[in-house]
């Protein structure tokens, strides 16, 4: 809702909907100029870093999964990588491939959720997907079908769609049988076709023209679109190991704002997530995804946050195609996990959660007990950039009536698929103004 008249105008949305977790936004306008913006988190903090102290490093994947029910695999994978880094453990390529397949399931489930249930209703003027289904039931059913396929992969590989149980440091408890994995191919082929339809569908939406002027940060690994591993790259030439990157990201706890804001080298804000991954890695996409992007006029880099829905749809095609490739090449890892021998040390793990780069760092003692933990989720890295977007989008849309301006601002936040539940495990909930 909005209030005020004349020179002062305040746009405030209390209780942002269609995002994961609880937040609100506020835009202050004075004399036709956006003066202040804030994305506020009122999700209560849960203190995961503190809870992890004194726990076994081998418990980290299951405990940190509970930070987010939408992207538990991302937490499990970054946790495993960090502990394996500290212990100096390598894993078999077949284990890495199975992790990538599980992660594809999460990307498919999460991207389908965001595109169809959280984001598309904005472009079509609907309050939610139920209203959207009244206009176009086939579209919503298509989205739910894709989402179901993502969940199916997580059930077959991970044992459960939300908080999978089959992941452990070193690999898996059990490698699924070849026939169980092969049975995923048929639904995945349908999901890939539906994902191609999705690209065409969202490619036809009326999308505002905005240039986000982002500094993109994403993983990069030669020959592969990044999911479960890679070095950290940026659009202005950064090339760092996850450990080096973690050293360079500084989080600030500031009273005026809502959060621990992440900055690179202490000063630069940046964006992670689909737009960043795509800008830094679109050349690595398989032909079917590149063609789908080209068909809707998407170039190799996209800096329009409203067009992120198209990039997410292209990534959906990629994740289905990649899962099909992994299934075709699947060989059960034997044994399903590497041996785990604790030693004292520090380890860092970074992977690409559906909504962006997620890194964990643990300091472990010689018995394998966690001394300190640091977890930096994508939404806290993106928060400064989301606020910049809010400022830019609100300024460009000041001519809109109040209710439409508020909706446009909400959409500017939803463009980045923020996961407030993730971020709030260490975000402050108080905004001090004045």
């Amino acid at each position, binding site marked *: 809702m909005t209030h005020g008249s004349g020179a002062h105008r305040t746009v405030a949305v209390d209780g942002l909907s269609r*995002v994961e977790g609880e937040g609100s936004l506020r835009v202050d306008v004075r004399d036709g100029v956006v003066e202040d913006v804030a994305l506020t988190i009122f999700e209560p903090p*849960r203190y995961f870093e503190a*809870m992890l102290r004194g726990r076994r490093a081998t418990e980290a994947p299951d405990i940190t999964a509970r930070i987010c029910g939408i992207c538990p695999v991302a937490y499990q994978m970054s946790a495993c990588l960090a502990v394996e880094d500290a212990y100096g453990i390598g894993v078999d390529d077949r284990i890495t491939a199975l992790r990538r397949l599980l992660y594809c399931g999460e990307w498919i489930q999460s991207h389908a959720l965001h595109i169809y249930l959280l984001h598309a209703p904005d472009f079509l003027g609907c309050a939610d997907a139920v209203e959207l289904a009244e206009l176009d039931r086939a579209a919503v059913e298509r989205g739910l079908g894709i989402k179901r396929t993502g969940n199916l992969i997580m059930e077959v590989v991970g044992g459960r769609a939300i908080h999978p149980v089959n992941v452990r440091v070193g690999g898996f408890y059990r490698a699924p049988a070849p026939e169980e994995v092969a049975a995923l191919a048929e639904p995945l082929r349908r999901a890939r076709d539906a994902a191609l339809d999705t690209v065409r569908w969202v490619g036809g939406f009326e999308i505002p023209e905005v240039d986000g002027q982002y500094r993109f940060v994403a993983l990069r690994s030669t020959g592969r679109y990044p999911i479960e591993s890679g070095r950290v790259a940026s659009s202005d030439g950064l090339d760092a190991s996850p450990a080096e990157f973690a050293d360079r990201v500084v989080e600030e706890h500031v009273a005026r704002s809502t959060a621990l804001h992440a900055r690179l080298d202490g000063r630069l804000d940046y964006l992670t997530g689909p737009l960043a991954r795509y800008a830094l890695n679109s050349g690595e996409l398989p032909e079917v995804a590149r063609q789908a992007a080209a068909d809707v006029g998407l170039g190799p880099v996209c800096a329009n946050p409203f067009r992120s829905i198209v990039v997410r749809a292209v990534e959906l095609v990629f994740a289905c195609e990649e899962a099909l490739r992994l299934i075709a090449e699947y060989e059960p890892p034997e044994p399903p996990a590497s041996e785990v021998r604790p030693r004292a040390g520090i380890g860092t793990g970074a992977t690409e959660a559906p909504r962006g780069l997620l890194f964990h760092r643990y300091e472990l003692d010689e018995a394998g007990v966690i001394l300190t933990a640091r977890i930096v989720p994508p939404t806290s890295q993106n928060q400064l950039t989301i606020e910049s977007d809010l400022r830019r989008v609100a300024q460009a849309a000041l001519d809109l009536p109040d209710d439409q301006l508020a909706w446009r601002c909400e959409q500017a936040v939803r463009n980045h698929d923020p996961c407030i539940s993730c971020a709030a495990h260490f975000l402050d909930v108080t905004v001090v103004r004045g």
Partner: protein
Amino acid sequence: MTDVRPTLAVWKFASCDGCQLSLLDCEDELLAIAGAVRIAQFTEMSRARVEGPYDVSLVEGSITTATDAGRIREIRRSSRRLITIGACASAGGIQALRNFAQDGSYVDAVYAHPEYISSLASSTPISAHVPVDLELQGCPIDRGQLLEVITAELVGRKAVIPSHSVCQECKGRGTVCLLVSGGTACLGPVTRAGCGALCPSIGRGCFGCFGPSEGANPRALSDRLLEGGTTPADASRLFATFYVGNPLFGDEAVALARSGDPTPPDREGQP
């Protein structure tokens, strides 16, 4: 025409979103549910908001701030039936570990400026604040059980939710007992059924996602775990996760931690 459908509201407190995601994960039933009930409040799903009262409120998450303690009382007043979904709402969740920490140590560990933080020292279940009509257990809840609860509410009957242990689910699916045959630490004997005994079926001991089963005897299980070579510290950790806020698991975790020696090297994954 007046909308005569019953109204459903979904609310969130301190949690991971996973249990309300379970509702959106009902891909085959979601549009049918949205036809049978009027979804009046579900922030994760819709911009639309309908004022209460509500016929059924599903509540996810635990109470960790004074503001939330007030909010749940308002929700109770505007809800004919209030059902908690998941370990956080029903037992305080894994964040209830803070109930066992010394004052302030958790905030200090995470924040540079603890003075900006306004949260309670405890994480408590919804039932510690208001009367609850039904508690659906699990971390996360089971999608099938959620559908059963919604269906039962719609027709006005009692939901059929098992209260026996995971052990019986293992017997039902023919899984060989890991505790007896391999000495694997397993909470199956004291954990409520609902997951379908997922972990034992992949060779992993149960780690208690659904909380204590009816008549659970954690002490007897602890004795067995210690006899089998599990250290008191590790047995304590096993009880101190998603249901540490339930006294049956929490008290046992504390008793084991007090009885034990410092943690020896991790043996997981070693021959």
